[in-house]
Every structure is written in C-alpha cells, then in structure tokens.
C-alpha cells in the first residue's frame, strides 16, 4: 500500500535512501542538509545499518567510500563548504570506481556565504570539482517527492555505473514541506559483482568492471594511483593512463541517453525555458498562470551528463531561457550545444525567481 505523508525534503531524501537499501551514512552536520543526517541517525540503527558522525566532511566521504567497498549502499549529505572539502576523495571514488551517493543541499556561496538560503552555485563544482578528468552523474530534485525518488534512483545509478552520484538539491527543496506519495517499494538494481577469476579492473562491454566486494576472497588492491586491470599501480605508462581515464569518462558519457531524465513540454514552442531544481517550480507556476502562452519547457532531472540530445526536440526554438540560482553555470553548457540565443536568468541572494520575473524575461525582446 502506498501512503501519503507531508514531509520536509531532507526527510524525504533520507527515507528514499533507506528505501533503496542504504545502510551506511557517514557525514558531518552542515546547514541546510543536517536533517538528512539526523533522520539517518534515528533510522539506520533500527535497520541494522550504520550512522557515523565523522570529524569532518573529508572523513565523512572517506568512510562512505570505505563502507562501499564492503558492498554496502553508502551515502553522505552536505552543503557548499563541506562539498568543497570532499573534492579530493570524490576524485578518489571516481578513480577507484566506488559507488557512492553524495547529497548536496546547496546554499549561497562562496565560502560560508548564506547557510540558510538557497543557491545552485555548485553545479559546475559537482562536475569538475576534483582534479583530473573524470565523469559523474548529477540529479536535481524540484520537489519533496523527487527528493525521495531521485535519492533512491541515485543508488541504482551509482551501483550500475560504479561512479559517485550527486543529488544536487538546494535549500528550498531541502526544507520545504509538501505532500509526498510513498511507494510500496523502489526499484533496486544490485551492484554487479566481479566474476571470480576475472581481473578486478577489467571492464565488461559496458566499460564497467564487476565489483570485487571486500571480505569475499577477491584479494583486490584498490588504489587512487593510475592502475592496470589487476588494480596494480602503473603510474608512468602514458597509454595506460590515457585508456583508464578515457574509460572512466566514456562509461558515463556514452551512456548519457540512458542516464538522462527530463521532461519535454510544448516541444513546438518558440520560447523555451530550461531549468532544474527549485526554479522548476517558478516555471511551472508561470505555465499554469498563462495557459494561452505557448511556453516550451525542458525540465531536467539529470544535469550531468548533460542531456544535449533533449535540446534538439525543440525544433522551433528561437530562444532558450535558463533561470538558475547561480550566474549561468548550466546556461553556458547549453550554449555549447545550440545555435539560437541562450538567455541566462541568474538569481543570487537565496530567493527563488518570481513568476513575474520570468514573465518579464519571456516578454522582453532580448
């Protein structure tokens, strides 16, 4: 039986993780994500899981990666300053192909910025924040329901692609309360285990190697150094490094069509909004208030890898309007893929765009 609740976004995130079988949370308290940790602290022990409050966010993500190697579905939750601290170990997770889920309830930055106000300023950081080339998956919820659904989905993507998966929420969706329908169960795609006898970092046809769980006799060596298919350090071989990094990138980028999650609304429209996270709600309000205007809307749930193929569905698009709570981080990504004008509609300060502001942008000539 499904049931209806009236929950805060952060609660829904934690419950979505629990429904997906998350059994390890390692983290450090930080506004506005703390309720995720608090909820996990209350619930995980009752599900035979582990909650640990680490000494900082560096240790939080480290413990999550360690737990993941024992086969556990593991996550952490943070916000800007903690997210910055996690960057080195996020690169380690990408390099070692460790499944993990990192929730970032974004606040206003840079630095300590606006702890209690919303922002979307970490969208590029989640893609490129750690050093070196790699690819990740990032999902953006726009409702309490999606805080639940997309968190659960993040674990499946992390296990399938053996990659850090980000739930890039924001303070608005994290703290707002609204109706949510809790399903009986969520889809659970288990991590594909390594076949005994196969080299631990030898990829299958999908470029993803099977996972050698610690404690099962694989005797795998896991290192952040450039490594060969045995997992052994091989840090001065240019060809090997290139092929490893290319595989880490291509296993995600070549799967972008199947990872992509978005809605195309009014594909024949000439003016098309594109957004993700909390600003989705303003665009929805605008469309609701002005049913006579043919407003196109590409509403992204997956931001990385970027669903560029979705842009081609708006055949008549003369202009893309991109409201974001940053200075146009994803607008710039969109510009790379289209020939028509892209109008960035940035809003800083923590408040959401108002429908009037988006209407004005829609009616403006340029």
């Amino acid at each position, binding site marked *: 039986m499904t049931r209806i609740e009236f929950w805060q976004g952060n609660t829904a995130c934690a419950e979505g993780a629990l429904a997906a079988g998350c059994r390890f949370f390692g983290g450090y308290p930080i506004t506005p994500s703390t309720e995720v940790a608090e909820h996990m602290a209350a619930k995980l022990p009752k599900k035979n899981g582990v909650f640990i409050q680490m000494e900082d966010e560096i240790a939080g993500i480290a413990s999550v990666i360690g737990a993941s190697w024992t086969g556990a579905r593991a996550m952490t939750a943070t916000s800007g300053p903690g997210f910055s601290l996690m960057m080195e170990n996020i690169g*380690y997770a990408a390099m070692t192909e460790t499944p993990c889920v990192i929730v970032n309830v974004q606040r206003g930055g840079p630095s300590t910025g606006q702890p209690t106000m919303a922002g979307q300023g970490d969208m590029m950081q989640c893609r490129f924040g750690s050093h070196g080339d790699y690819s990740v998956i990032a999902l953006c919820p726009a409702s309490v329901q999606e805080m639940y659904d997309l968190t659960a989905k993040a674990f499946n993507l992390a296990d399938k692609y053996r990659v850090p998966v980000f739930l890039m929420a924001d303070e608005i969706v994290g703290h707002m309360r609204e109706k949510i329908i809790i399903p009986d169960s969520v889809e659970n795609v288990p991590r594909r285990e390594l076949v005994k006898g196969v080299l631990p970092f030898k990829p299958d046809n999908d470029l993803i190697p099977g996972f050698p769980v610690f*404690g099962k006799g694989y005797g795998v060596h896991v290192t952040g150094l450039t490594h060969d298919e045995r997992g052994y350090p091989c840090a001065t071989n240019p060809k090997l490094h290139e092929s490893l990094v290319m595989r880490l990138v291509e296993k995600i980028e070549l799967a972008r069509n199947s990872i992509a999650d978005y809605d195309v609304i009014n594909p024949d429209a000439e003016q098309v909004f594109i957004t993700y996270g909390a600003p989705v709600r303003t665009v929805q309000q605008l469309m609701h208030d002005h049913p006579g205007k043919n407003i196109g809307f590409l509403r992204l749930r997956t931001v990385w890898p970027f669903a560029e193929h979705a842009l081609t569905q708006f055949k008549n698009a003369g202009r893309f309007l991109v409201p974001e709570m940053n200075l146009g981080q994803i607008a710039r990504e969109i510009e790379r893929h289209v020939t028509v004008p892209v109008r960035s509609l940035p809003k800083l300060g923590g408040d959401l765009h108002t429908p009037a502001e988006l209407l004005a942008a829609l009616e403006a000539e340029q």
Partner: protein
Amino acid sequence: MSFEDWYRQDRLPHIFCAGCGNGTIINCTLAAIEQMAWKKEDTVFVSGIGCSSRAPGYIAADSLHTTHGRAIAFATGVKLANPNLNVVVFTGDGDLAAIGGNHFIHGCRRNIDITVVCMNNQIYGMTGGQGSPTTPLGCLSSTTPYGCAETPFDLCELAMAAGANYVSRWTSYHVKELEKAVLAGLQTPGFSFIEAMVQCPTAFGRRNKFKQVSDQVDFLHTHTLLKAKRDRMIEQGEHVPGDMFVVGELVRRNRPVLGAKP
C-alpha cells in the same frame, strides 16, 4: 603458512630504497598477523600516501590505498560497515601526524577496532626528504635546510591522550619486540597504535650524518629507553634525556570499543 605467503609475489620488486626499514616493519606485522591465524579473505589493509602507505599493495589481501592522511577515516567506514573484517592500517609520520592528524585523534577517541602501524622515519621520504611533524629539532631536511626549528610530535603520547586502547613503540632494530607488540595490538580490542621508528637512509640518513644504514639503526637502538626504565628514572627523580625514544608497551587498557566483532 608463513608470513611470506601474505605477499603478492607478482608485485616484486618493491619500490623501497636499499636499506629502507619499511620492509622490516611489514614483515613483523605480517608475522604477527600470521600468529593470529587470520584468513586473508577476512583481512583488509588500508593506507594513505607515502612510502609506508605502499605496503598494502604488496600484500595478497583486499587493500585500500587511499588519499593522503585519510586512511583511518576510510578504515573506519570499512570496519563499521563490516565488523567481521580485520582491519590494519599502514601509515607514516607525515600521513598520520600532519595531514591526517585529526583522523588519528578521532580514531583513538572512538577507539575504533583497528590496528594502526606507523612507520616513523621522521621525514617525507616519497617526496624527497621534506621535514615532517616528527623531524627532531635541529635535524636537516630539504625544507629545514638550517635545522628543524619545530618541536616534534610524540605520536604515542598523542594516541594515549586521545584514548587508544593499545599503544606501543619500538624500532626497526627490535624486530622480535615489534612483532610481539603488533600481535598484542591485534589481540587488543579497540584502537591499537604501534609506532615503529625506522631508518630512511635516502632522505633522512644522508642529510643527518648517518653514513651507513647501520649507523642510523645503531642510533635508533642506542637512543631507546625502555618504558620500565623511564618510569624508574622518574620515580627516583632522575633526569630523563629528551632525545631518547621511550619504547615498550605504553598502554593496554579496556575502554569501550567501536566496531568490535559481533
């Protein structure tokens, strides 16, 4: 089985310099593990970055060679997620006491059920001989060319003050004592910390007037002071020289443990 069976033969030769003390410490640790009769599949080695942190790569068990300083934080996740695993951390003075100092303190405080073996060569060997938090006052390194001006950390005192259940210190000269100390650490539930002073002829010795490898091993040997003797000296009001390494079992206690086997 002998401790040699724990090595990945296909990874040899190793990267350690001629005369390095790390191999001695790894041998002592594996010999102690051998006496525990642990199965390889139940044992996980974790390390950070540095010469000593390369050790797990030569051991035929599951191993996690992580980021600089964070080995204990990774190990905490491994151990809590699967308490049935035996978790051993290899680290060095720079990895543990500088960049990883906070994780060291909190690992001790939590008394997480892992064993940490620190190869203290008093220098950053991997990067070519920079000063570390345990470089003695006045000693030369590439970043202390006029002599180290900072007071070094006493890692064992730190571990004891922070709450570890087992702490001991020996040197690469004291192989039998070290092996027994690691064994006692493995047997003691909670956070066990074994500091092994090691010679580093390449990065430390040649800058600090140790012409031969054996000169530095001799120095470590002659500059050790048994804990029992140190305690006696304090009791009798004698002066304890500041340049001596206090060795022996420094603490073994039974504080509450996190992550013990069910």
